[in-house]
Structure formats: C-alpha cells, structure tokens
C-alpha cells in the first residue's frame, strides 16, 4: 500500500464516518457540523483526484458560505428532537427505496464501460507539474460550454432576484438614517451661536433663545 492509497483510505474513512453521523446525530447542530466535516474531507479526496480547483471551490462555497448560513438557521430554531424522530418507521420503506435506487444508479455508473475508459482503473490521467487545472477548466467553460454556462448563471441570477423579492418587506416602523442627508447637513442647520456679553449675565429670555431639542434633531 503506497502513501496515496493510505491517504485515500484515511480520508474515505473520515468521510463515511462523518456522513453517517450527519443522519444519526441527535443534535441538529452536530449534524450540520458533521456535514461540514464531510464536505471538507470530500474536498481532500478531490485534491487527490487532481481536481484541485473544484476541491477548493467546494470548501470556499459550501463550507465557507452555504453551511455557515445553514448553521445560523439550525442554531436559531427551537427544535423538539423527539418530534423529529416520530415518523421514522413509517417513512422508512420510502427512504429505503430511494436509497436502494441511488445505490443501484451509482453502481451502474461505476460499472459502465465509459467510466474506466482511460485505462487507469478509474484514476485520472496523470499530468505534469506545469499543467494548470484552472486554465483548462476556464478554457472549457468559456469556449465549448459557454452557452450552458451562461444559461446556468442567468438561472442563478433570476433565483437570487426572486428570493430577495419574495422576502423583502418594507417595514413602516424601521428607524434608519439617510447618510446622504447626514452628510449634506451644514453648520447653520444645527447650530446657532448666541453672543453672550461677559458683563451682562444670561437673562431668562436668552435661555429661551437656545435651540430646543426639536430643532436640533
């Protein structure tokens, strides 16, 4: 067993353990954290497959952004754990069917002839040290697959706009400041200088002349 195989088994074991704990952990926050661990180890496995750009993107997007939001939501929910487990056995047959189907599909893909086509037994072609995964990916995306790529990005954009439009509610009672108005304020709007003679103490009517709280705001 060489070093690469040892690394593979090391990460694969962690990945399987983490993935199993995602569904078996009692606490949803622990589940989310095990999912993070699963993503991270999957990224490590992708690196060993020479897909370093995809691996780093997986960490950047899923671990660094998506799962943080997930964790936010899970932490703020008040979840009754027993209620979550109630329907386990009634849903079990359906879940089992889906799982078996997915396992069968994966087997079909892995057993297919095209998967082993390069003759390396499923391992990727080994490239020299000067080979840039990212350049190759960029070239493919922006030449050969430019239309699917652009269509996908437009769909994502529409999804973002739709999500914002659905959740954006203008509240009447929100207090906020208009920075432009704050900056545009001049001295004369807020301040009044009252000459006070040193020999001649402030009279009651002079006190009335100081700007009231209403004018100041």
């Amino acid at each position, binding site marked *: 067993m060489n070093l690469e195989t040892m690394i593979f088994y090391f990460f694969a074991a962690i990945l399987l353990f983490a993935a199993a704990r995602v569904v078996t952990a009692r606490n949803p*926050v622990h589940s989310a*954290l095990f999912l993070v661990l699963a993503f991270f180890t999957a990224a490590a496995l992708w690196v060993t497959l020479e897909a*370093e750009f995809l691996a780093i993107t997986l960490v*950047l997007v899923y671990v*660094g952004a998506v799962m*943080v939001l997930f*964790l936010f939501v899970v932490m703020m929910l008040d979840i009754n754990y027993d209620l979550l487990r109630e329907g386990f056995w009634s849903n079990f047959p359906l879940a089992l069917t889906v799982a078996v189907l997915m396992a069968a599909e994966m087997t079909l893909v892995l057993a297919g002839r095209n998967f082993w086509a390069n003759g390396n037994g499923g391992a990727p072609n080994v490239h020299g040290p000067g080979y840039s995964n*990212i350049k190759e990916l960029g070239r493919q995306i922006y030449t050969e697959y430019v239309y699917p790529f652009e269509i996908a990005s437009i769909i994502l954009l529409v999804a973002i706009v739709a999500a914002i439009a659905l959740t954006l509610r203008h509240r009447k009672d929100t207090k906020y*400041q208009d920075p432009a108005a704050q900056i545009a304020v001049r001295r004369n709007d807020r301040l009044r200088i009252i000459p006070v003679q040193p020999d001649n103490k402030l009279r009651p009517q002079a006190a009335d002349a100081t700007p009231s709280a209403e004018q100041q705001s």
Partner: protein
Amino acid sequence: MEFFQSLLGPFWPVVWTLVKIVAIVAPLLLGVAYVTYAERKVIGYMQVRIGPNRVGPLGLLQPIADGLKLMMKEIIIPSGANKKLFLLAPVLCMAPALIAWAVIPFTPELVLANIDASLLFIMAITSMGVYGVVLAGWASNSKYPFLGAMRSAAQIVSYEIAMGFALVGVLMAAQSLNLVEIVKAQQGASFFSWYWLPLFPLFLVYMISSVAEINRAPFDVAEGESEIVGFHAEYSGMAFAVFFLAEYANMILVATLSSLLFLGGWLPLFDFAPFTWIPGFFWLIAKICFVLFLFLWFRATFPRYRYDQIMRLGWKVFIPVTLVWLLFIGGMMQTPLGYLFH
C-alpha cells in the same frame, strides 16, 4: 541531512515537512506575541503614555508574562455549555489562521507548498474561521455570546465578499492565482509598478475590509473590550487567550497578504543599487510590519463604527465599488492602455 534521510527512510518526507511547518509556525507565534507588545507600546506612545515597561528591559518580556498568567488561570466551562464544541471553537478560530501559511511565499523559492491556486486556497481556508466564532457563541449556551456570535459572523461573511472581489482584481491583473507569480508580475523599476497604484480602489477596499474581517478597531464590535458583550464572554484563561491569539495571527496573515498582493512582496522599493542589496525576505518583513503598524494606528485613531454602518459600508459601498472597478479593469485590458494594468 543525508544521515537522517537514510535513518527515516520512507518517513523522511513527512518528517521534513513537519520540520518546515515548525520553522514557519514557531516564528509566527513569537510574532503574534510581540504584535500584542507592539500594539500596547505603539498605542501607548500615540496616547502620550509609555506602555508596558515593567517586565524585562523596556517591558520586552511582557507578552511572556501575559502568556504565563493566562495559562495558570482556570478554564471555566459553563454548566449548560456543550463541552466539546465549547473547547473546539477556539481551535477552529486559530487553525485557519495557521493553515493559510502553508502557501505563503517568503521569497520566490522559500515557500512550503508552491501550489497553483494558492490565492484561492487562502480564500477557502480563511473563510472557515467564522465557524469558531459561531460555535463559540452557540456552545456557550448563553444569549449574549450567541447574539455576539451572530453579529460578528454576519460581519465576517459580509466583508469576505468585498475582500474576494478585491482579490479577483489582483488575479485579473496578474493573470495567475499563484502568489509567487502575482508578486513576480509586479516587478518593475520602482514601487509605482506594484498593484496598489493601478488597483488603488481595490487596495483601499481590501485594506478596510481586511480590518473588518479580523474584527479589529474601528470594526471591533465583536469584542470591544469594555463596552460590548462579544461571542467569547463565557471564555476564560487560555481558551479566551486563543481567540486573541487567533485575532493577532489573522492580523499578521492579512498584513502579509496585502504586502504580497498590493505592495510587491519581496520586491525592493526601487530596482537599483542600495535597495537591491537588501535581501527580498527583509523587504517582505518590512512591508508586513508597515501594514501591521497601520492596523495599530487605525485602532488609536478612529472611533468605533456603529453596527448598521458597518453593514452598510460593506454591502452598499464596497461591493459596488469593487464590481465597477473589475469591469473597468477588464475593459481597459482590451485597450492599448492595457499594459498599465498588468
């Protein structure tokens, strides 16, 4: 060295890499300790005080005394806390700040792992630092740390976007994701060829958002020593200190990154005789120290931002500015003036 190589056989690469890691992390941790000292001294002088001067000559042993004190203290774990995650959170805060150094080049040759996508790697690794903050707040099982965690996590996530866009500008100009290549692309006659000039708006955005990203003043709503209850309110002793060590390690990291990306890394100030005599490594260290000094200076100068203003600045000012400047760079590169942006 050959002797060790034959002694350890197949384990030699592992051991050698570990030795190199220690050679990077040990000076880094020492640097972290002395940034705390520098901060107290610099801010002291800026406020017409002397700063620490009791422990050792000029107070130079102060960080060690502080470290010893914190290690002697008891780590109190609240009874309602989730013990494992409570102790894991400071580790998760500290680890990304150290892992990122794996790909930082000190000279064109001196780098632990000269990988192709090093800039992307750093962005991915530093984006994980937020887990420490979120978990610290949640595992404490107390509402104030939890609110503090929400506040600083939202801030970190927001400023990461502006920071990422600023880095996109750098890699567009350098046409590479490799940090060594990015520094080499800034080679020129003087400091005017470094990227701070052609990418000036991005440089500003990067500097300001990195201050916000590491929760430093004037964006330090995460801790704000005396006024605000932050995500680490339930921590004590060394567990609390690790959060602070992580903050200072992150400070050094972003200072190094801004020196590499915008201030020409190990390149000398001018490319002629007296300046080129100094080795590149010392130029890099000098630039890092300069940026760190700026961070300390900011803290002594600016009043703290209000939270809604922090969010407004990140989302409504920095992100549009970076997007417009990216479009501008992309457009200019297609014109005859494009050489200015390479």
